[in-house]
């Protein structure tokens, strides 16, 4: 006789229990309108792990020593794709607020260092370059160095090649597309070699102090949608590395679903009109200085 295979069911109570747990572990909070999205991925993972039902899966997830399944689940819940001007509100914050604070401690002509990690295939560092050129009025008064790193040398090569699909450049205002790209085919756009030359790409593992040790005096770090894929310890190591790479008063921008406050108390939360970012304090930290948000 053929046995009927029934799909696991996620009840309202299961959803609430999972939502609370996942928020505590990752800082990602799913609104009620994400229920279908969450249920589908949870059911996929329940089936993939061979758990009998949600309860069995949740208990295994909750007490699994390695954290491997939690990481699988995080990956499933945070499918990311990159494109030009993604989460552009942080670039607005860069040119309106963060750089205004950075230049308070610099004289005209001095260098400003911005580090984009992971570079992935280059959309983020090039977006930063375009934003600065087009929307930061003081660009001609300072020397801006854009550094960009990734652990994956394949994507670094692609970033330096600088050829993008129509979807990847779809959010760019048309004048910028015409100014900084050359259309190669219907679906291929090649970025200006001047922009490629304006970004210094390097291979770096953010969790490895030997890789990050040489990064110093950085004013702004964009580290978006990366830490979410790390385990707890690697996140802390990354937070330590960025702290030591930053100048006092320097900023870190994380992805919209990430929270530095859940990783480390090294940083001060700064809320600007366009974005919430994290700042290395200007002066040494006493334990009672209240740096946690």
């Amino acid at each position: 006789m053929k046995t009927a295979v029934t799909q696991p069911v996620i009840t309202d109570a299961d959803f609430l229990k999972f939502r609370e747990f996942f928020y505590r572990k990752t800082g990602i909070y799913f609104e009620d309108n994400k229920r279908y999205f969450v249920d589908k991925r949870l059911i996929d993972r329940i089936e993939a792990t061979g758990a009998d039902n949600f309860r069995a899966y949740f208990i295994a997830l909750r007490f699994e020593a390695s954290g491997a399944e939690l990481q699988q689940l995080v990956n499933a819940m945070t499918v990311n794709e990159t494109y030009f001007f993604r989460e552009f509100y942080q670039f607005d914050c860069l040119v309106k607020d963060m750089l205004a604070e950075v230049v308070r401690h610099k004289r005209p002509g001095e260098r400003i260092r911005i580090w984009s990690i992971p570079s992935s295939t280059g959309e983020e560092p090039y977006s930063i370059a375009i934003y600065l050129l087009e929307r930061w009025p003081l660009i001609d008064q300072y020397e801006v160095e854009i550094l960009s790193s990734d652990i994956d040398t394949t994507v670094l090569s692609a970033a330096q090649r600088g050829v993008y699909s129509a979807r990847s450049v779809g959010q760019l205002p048309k004048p910028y597309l015409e100014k900084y790209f050359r259309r190669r085919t219907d679906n291929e756009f090649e970025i200006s070699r001047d922009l490629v030359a304006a970004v210094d790409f390097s291979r770096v593992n953010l969790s490895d102090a030997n890789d990050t040790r040489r990064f110093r005096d950085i004013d702004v770090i964009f580290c978006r949608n990366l830490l979410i894929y790390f385990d707890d310890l690697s996140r802390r190591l990354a937070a330590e590395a960025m702290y030591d790479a930053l100048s006092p008063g320097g900023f870190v921008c994380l992805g919209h679903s990430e929270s530095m406050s859940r990783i480390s108390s090294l940083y001060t939360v700064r809320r600007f009109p366009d974005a919430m970012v994290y700042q290395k304090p200007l002066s040494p930290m006493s334990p009672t200085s209240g740096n946690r948000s």
Partner: protein
Amino acid sequence: MGLRKNSELEPLRPVIDRALPRDAEGLIAQLRSPDVELRRWAARDLAAHPDAARALGEQLQQELDSSVREALFTSLGTIATQDSVGALLPLLRREDAQLRNRAIETLASMPRAVATRIAALLGDTDVDVRIFTVNLLGELRHEQVTQWLLNVLASERDVNVVAAAIDVLAEAGQPEHVAALRAARQRFAQDPFIGFAADVAIARIECP
């Protein structure tokens, strides 16, 4: 001015051999440096020296700079040995909540190493230490967590420790734990909070 071109880049800041020794002995000596940056780097680099766990713990007992504390905790979490656990446990008795909470977080990140100490911690004479241990169990990924919590429900005499255990079981409990929750409710029948907390936990476990 403007964007600096790649071809013009100077090295960031070259990695140069540090004047101060980077062996374990030298790094441990630098933990006492008056220079915060030196202490932070010493703490970070000692992550590669498991034998330094005790020295990292001793520094945590007296370190006043939060950024150095963070590096000390992260390195102890990286080392993750019995010595790391031994270095962190005294912090559960400290009044400084930030220090205590970071100790709990770091201990929770090393389940195998900390597991052998749980029974003793749950039998500690200090009620606060027992409560913090239950808090630690709430974050610990270890297959014995529920058994330790059931032991608390069955034999712990302090109502606040039992309440903390019920709180964890409200999330992590399974149907087979309901009887233990009911028994704890009965054991503390004179305490309305335990009654309320146990009812909430049972309802959450039993809801379809």
